[in-house]
């Protein structure tokens, strides 16, 4: 997949996409500088002493110095002051990060193995893509459908674990247009590194238009609607559609009307009934060579129209 984005990940830090990101980078720059200076002092001191006091004879006389209270106090107190200073500076930014803005645009996020689902208040659902307007407070209300995940936007310098059984939240105010990477940052199994999403920041007008267009999903032709659902439910995480390659489950390319070899049962013809069964009770028939119990069931998540739409879409894959 082509991930065009302005994040310019080739630079040492991803492009700053929010004001908080800039604040974090400023603090980080200070920490880098302070660390560098400390290392120069420590390592420089070490190298200097090793050279200056290198052994000259086997009977060198060395000084007998057990301690120096003043020096020891100094190099305890000064680091403590610096540590507390950066702690305080960090607290200030962190407080900002964790204080949820009132009247933010709220988007619901679902993490699942192995994709991100987004749901807008208007009912619009997207898969692995979240579109937000620029210069507006956005709050993400997140939960997981299975195991721990973590929603990470490197360009915004924010991250929050997504926990099953409860909600966690993140907020940001994007001040740059563009597309930004979203990564899952909590190990969650096979495709942990494949749970990529895109955060797209657009002007307000474009956002409004996009939201409107997405809401019209009901007027789309069945197969197109199926394609949307396929994307929202992230079926592509496990099933390829453009060729015969295997991701986690069998490829769906040219699958309709083909013959499928089933584990422990006679071959089946891939028709509408078989597809419906595979979506609602995936463990009923397992294709030979694939493991049982991996595909989750979508029982209760799709209504009849959506099922039809998906099946129609799969028919178009050739």
């Amino acid at each position: 997949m082509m991930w065009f984005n302005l994040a310019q990940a080739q630079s040492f830090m991803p492009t700053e996409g929010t004001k908080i990101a800039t604040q974090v980078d400023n603090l980080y720059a200070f920490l880098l500088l302070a660390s560098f200076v400390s290392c120069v002092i420590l390592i420089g001191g070490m190298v200097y002493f090793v050279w200056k006091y290198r052994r000259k004879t086997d009977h060198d006389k060395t000084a007998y110095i057990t301690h120096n209270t003043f020096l020891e106090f100094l190099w305890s107190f000064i680091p403590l002051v610096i540590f507390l200073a950066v702690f305080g500076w960090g607290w200030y930014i962190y407080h900002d990060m964790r204080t949820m803005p009132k009247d933010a645009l709220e988007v619901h996020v679902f993490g699942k193995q192995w994709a991100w689902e987004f749901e807008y208040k208007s009912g619009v659902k997207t898969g692995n893509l979240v579109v937000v307007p620029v210069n507006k407070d956005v709050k993400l209300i997140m939960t997981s459908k299975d195991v721990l995940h973590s929603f990470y936007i490197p360009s915004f310098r924010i991250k929050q674990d997504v926990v099953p059984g409860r909600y966690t939240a993140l907020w940001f105010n994007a001040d740059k247009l563009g597309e930004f990477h979203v990564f899952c940052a909590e190990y969650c199994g096979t495709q942990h590194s494949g749970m990529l999403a895109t955060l797209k920041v657009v002007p307000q007008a474009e956002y409004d238009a996009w939201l409107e267009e997405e809401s019209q999903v009901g007027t789309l032709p069945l197969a197109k609607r199926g394609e949307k659902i396929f994307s929202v439910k992230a079926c592509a995480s496990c099933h390829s559609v453009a060729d015969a390659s295997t991701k986690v489950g069998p490829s769906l390319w040219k699958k309709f009307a083909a013959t499928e070899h089933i584990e422990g049962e006679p071959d089946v013809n891939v028709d509408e009934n078989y597809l419906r069964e595979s979506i609602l009770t995936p463990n009923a028939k397992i294709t030979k060579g694939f493991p049982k119990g991996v595909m989750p069931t979508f029982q209760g998540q799709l209504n009849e129209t959506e099922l039809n739409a998906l099946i129609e879409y799969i028919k178009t894959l050739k």
Partner: protein
Amino acid sequence: MATAAAHGHSSDKNYLNETSGIWSWLTTLDHKRIGIMYFISVMFFFLLGGIMALLLRLELMSPGPTIMTADTYNQVMTYHGAIMVFMVIIPGIPAILGNFFLPIHIGAKDVAFPKLNLLSWYLLMTGALLAFSTLFTHKIDTGWTFYTPYSIKTGTSVVTMVIAAFIMGMSSILTGLNFIATVHKLRAPGMTMYRIPLFVWALYSTAILQVLATPVLGITLLLLSVERAFGVGIFDPALGGDPVLFQHFFWFYSHPAVYIMILPAMGVVSELIATFSRKTIFGYTAIAYSSLGIAGVSFFVWGHHMFVSGQSATAGIVFSFITMLVGVPTAIKMFNWIATMYKGSVQMQSPMLYALGFLFLFAIGGVTGIMLAVLPIDVHFHDTYFVVAHFHYVMVGGTLMAIMGGFFYWFPKMFGKMYNEATARLSFVFIFIGFNVTFFPQFVLGAMGMPRRYFDYIPAYHSLNTISTVGSWLIATGFLIGLYTIINGLMKGEKAPANPWGGKTLEWTTTSPPPHFNFDVEPVITAGPYEYR
């Protein structure tokens, strides 16, 4: 100057040849032989864990599957962590060098409970065997941290591995218990707590952690097993449980555990710098108390692994603050070690090279730790390669450097032979350079946003990953040269004198190798351990 009678019964009898045959080793009660047995086992485990690492880095050399599938990668990643943490770094210095030298350092004939000591070794081996059995059943893929609910749901041999870790934890507890009793009760006359070597202070502080922290890991792993077996619902949200509670339980042990990993290393560094500067250690009392201080404070910082876990902001603030406090005693040690070299007589033999390598690498590891303790910085860096680089700098750049330095330092004493200095130095060069080539780019990768435990990555991260992989080959070369140095030294090394380095601690007053009972006559101590006057 410490006084001690230093002669063996005859010039030829020592702990190595006192009795012979493998059975005499497997039933030994001699702390020195037990230390050697640990050395062989731990070295073997390190080799295995290291091969896992090389495989990981090979896979990560380029994006997409290179030599394995995602599932295999996740398994290799898990075993690399579990082997290195439970079988190498936690037992590491205390079980090998601590077992060998703690009694000698305090003028004792053995540890307090020699049979318990042997049991500790057998427990480690049993746990390790059980852990390796999972390679043949269902290889685990949870990461060494076993986070729930994934570790509850995955169909792999989690319970077996967790029981193995429990058993290895018991090994650690018994070693710690043994060391505390030994330090309290078996010091030679005149050996006050302020005359024990700093290595002993380090082992003592570590032992306190082993005894107090490890039981909590035990119960955490037990609860995880019960959760998997019975679906009790404490960590499983589907049953009303709290997955974040697992993290609290887990890190309550595992944070002190990282100090179990580093404190003994710091003890070794104190010994090396004093001896190779021929100068008394600067700030003995400060270093001793800082070890205790680090051990104490380490119990209150576990939440800094959980800043983005869903724990409250207030908790985050408290944990960040206390973590800053634990940085101070660590900084004190660094300054004191460097001050020791001031107006000393520094000789750059291989053990000292490793000690200096420790100072360099631990400095970087330490300052990046402070960075990670700053809340908003950790929000960006948590679970990225920045953290991976940080902990490898402190655990490998720190502990492993110290174990190599300590091992070469004490090699003549342990085996009565000298190793080849040139190849030892060569191994240092490869390890030091290779280490930086492997792990420094990972700081950058983390800053660029690359998460950890990633089988695949976006093309932007490609070149730094390739560099890191090349570095891993340099490290491997360095360790192979080191292994060659050891084996060559054992087979063909020159006979070692009693005190090749001019050390002042008690082990250098006995023969190389020491006699079975360490001392013929109990030494009487009249001065501190680093009296270079």
